[in-house]
């Protein structure tokens, strides 16, 4: 028997080699969003027979129809306006 040590003699639990391996850690957020290109590549390479300008589905169709409507409406308006503009001015 001897003097009781004031400081515990058994070494504290080792701190080296106790970190969780990277796969167990929560994934750190990639800078400004994650890479969705592989998913988009899958979508746009589907063999669904759709042309590239409509291959995104409903949003593409909406945008296409809006553009077409605006353009055709505009051309009609343009032809009417140019016809009126070409009439000689009434005295």
């Amino acid at each position, binding site marked *: 028997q001897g003097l009781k040590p004031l400081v515990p003699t058994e070494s504290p639990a080792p701190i080296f080699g106790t970190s969780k391996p990277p796969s167990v850690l929560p994934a750190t957020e990639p800078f400004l969003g994650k890479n969705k*290109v592989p998913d988009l590549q899958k979508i746009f390479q589907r063999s669904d027979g759709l042309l590239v*300008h409509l291959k995104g589905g409903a949003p593409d169709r909406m945008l*296409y129809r809006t553009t077409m409507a605006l353009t055709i409406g505009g051309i009609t*308006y343009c032809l009417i306006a140019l016809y009126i*503009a070409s009439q000689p001015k009434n005295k």
Partner: protein
Amino acid sequence: MAHQAHSYHMVDPSPWPILGAAAALLTTSGLVMWFHYNNPYLLIIGLLSTSLVMFQWWRDIVRESTFQGHHTPTVQKGLRYGMVLFITSEAFFFLGFFWAFFHSSLAPTPELGGQWPPVGIQPLNPMDVPLLNTAILLASGVTVTWAHHSIMEANRKQGIQALALTVLLGCYFTALQAMEYYEAPFSIADSVYGSTFFVATGFHGLHVIIGTTFLLVCLLRLIKYHFTPTHHFGFEAAAWYWHFVDVVWLFLYITIYWWGS
């Protein structure tokens, strides 16, 4: 299923070319209706349809390249030729306005008081905001090169920071020029001085806005992982265009702002 025996891209049938032409018709007729009949509606429809066509056409090109893999090295070579030829055509466009400037300023007529700047015109001090604008564009040339090297070295964070800084510098230039336009003591109607000044710097400003937008689109694509360290031609095209815009400004600054003051 038949596969192509060549490395070119035979694109899908697309409505954008003809709709783009229609939009151009609407925009030009719209300008006529606005100038001569004070009616802006056709012009608004024209500008709207032009924007829609541009958005969808370029969106489809991104789909064909990044998502479908059609941009082989052969295709990319063609795109490089195309961009070089386009920028060359733009250089000739500006050459015309520089010609007009020198035509009027090298031999000032009696109506101008036989001098340049003409009598009564108070030109802008080239050492004031114009010099700051020169520094801004030169700095943006450095930041866009920094962004390019970051992309080639797969350094995502730095690439995004450098490209974002480039876009901000572009916006800063535009804001300062807009303020200069507002505060200028002369207008476009002030003899041929006003015409040459505002048409040349005005078209340049429009190209700065176009270039800034192009760079902004590249920034968004960079954030979305579209570019690889070896394949990022969209970015290179934007950078070439931006350097062109910078060079045109340097010519404008030296000739119109400095020599012409």
